[in-house]
């Protein structure tokens, strides 16, 4: 069972994607970015596998359903899909608990501070106080520069286009500083990832 969650400030932002997909699975909207906080997600897409007992079998990973973005992301869809099918069919048990823990990235105190600033910013934005919201979105991004659910996720709320020149500059600067934009797990990344 897939549960798809859009980290979007407004259901209408997610609607075109949901309607195009005609999903038979739950397709939910997380306007407060609650999942990013609970699961320590720092970008989208983020994928987790959860077993029948509600246990995390595979922690935060990056994978796409197909290869249309492969040139940009450097990520092959086939590896994750093959592992997923094997797990769903019962051919593979997924990762062991020690492996999951080894591959989990847990939040730091500073990252939780960033989430508090983001939470305040989002509340202010919801109240229509966009200028004040903007100040706290910027603060949040400074505290957690690697967290694109904050830095890119807040762009529309700051009147910026998340596909536009500010984002392109942000990602250029990020790469120039030697950082990766996507953080796939080692076995998803395989040879094409880093």
């Amino acid at each position, binding site marked *: *069972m*897939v*549960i*798809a*969650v*859009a980290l*979007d400030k407004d*259901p209408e*932002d*997610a*609607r075109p*994607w*949901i309607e195009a997909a005609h999903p038979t699975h*739950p*397709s*939910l*909207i*997380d306007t*407060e970015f*609650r*999942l*990013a*906080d*609970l*699961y*320590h997600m720092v970008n*989208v*897409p983020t*994928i*987790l*596998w*959860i*077993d*029948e007992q*509600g*246990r*995390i079998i595979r*922690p935060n990973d990056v994978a796409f359903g197909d290869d249309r973005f492969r040139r940009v992301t450097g990520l092959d869809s086939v590896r994750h899909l093959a592992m*997923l099918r094997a797990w769903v069919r019962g051919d593979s048990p997924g990762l062991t608990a020690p492996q*999951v*823990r080894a591959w*989990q990235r*847990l939040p730091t*105190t500073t990252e*939780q*501070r960033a*989430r*508090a*600033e983001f*939470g*305040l910013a989002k*509340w*202010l934005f919801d109240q229509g*106080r966009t200028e*004040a919201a903007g100040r*706290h979105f910027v603060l949040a991004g400074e505290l957690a520069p690697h967290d694109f*659910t904050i830095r*890119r*996720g807040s762009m529309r709320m700051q009147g910026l286009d*998340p596909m536009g020149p500010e984002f392109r500059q942000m990602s250029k600067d990020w790469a120039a500083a030697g950082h990766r934009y996507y953080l796939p797990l080692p076995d998803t990344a395989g040879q094409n990832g880093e």
Partner: protein
Amino acid sequence: MSEQPFVIIDDGRPIEVSIHVDAGRVYVPASAASALGWALKPEGLCWGDVCVPLPPGMLEARGLDLARAADALCRPLAVDLGEAAAYLGASVDERCRALASLDAPDFTLPDLAGRLHSLRDQRGRKVMLVAYASW
């Protein structure tokens, strides 16, 4: 010193309180503290099962120093005095313990029709949770 209206968003839950501001610091009187689920006991400041001793300067006549109390509870605090609002986030301990337990944190969110769905509704099935966005 008069009380001012203020909103404290407690891990996503907005709570309207009356507080005092002095020299740029927010003081939470007893009524506001109890709205946050905080209690002052002989053991100190208690929130749920957690009690922390009251360090000097945290409790004054005008109330609990909000920033010092948040610090004592290890919870991150974002404040905007001009907007009369503050956000009290989850502690890193709380988030780390939950994730390291490997029990997937439950959540309840709406679909486009407004129907609510929870992760725990899927017990008994394998789930692939995918977070994506229009950005």
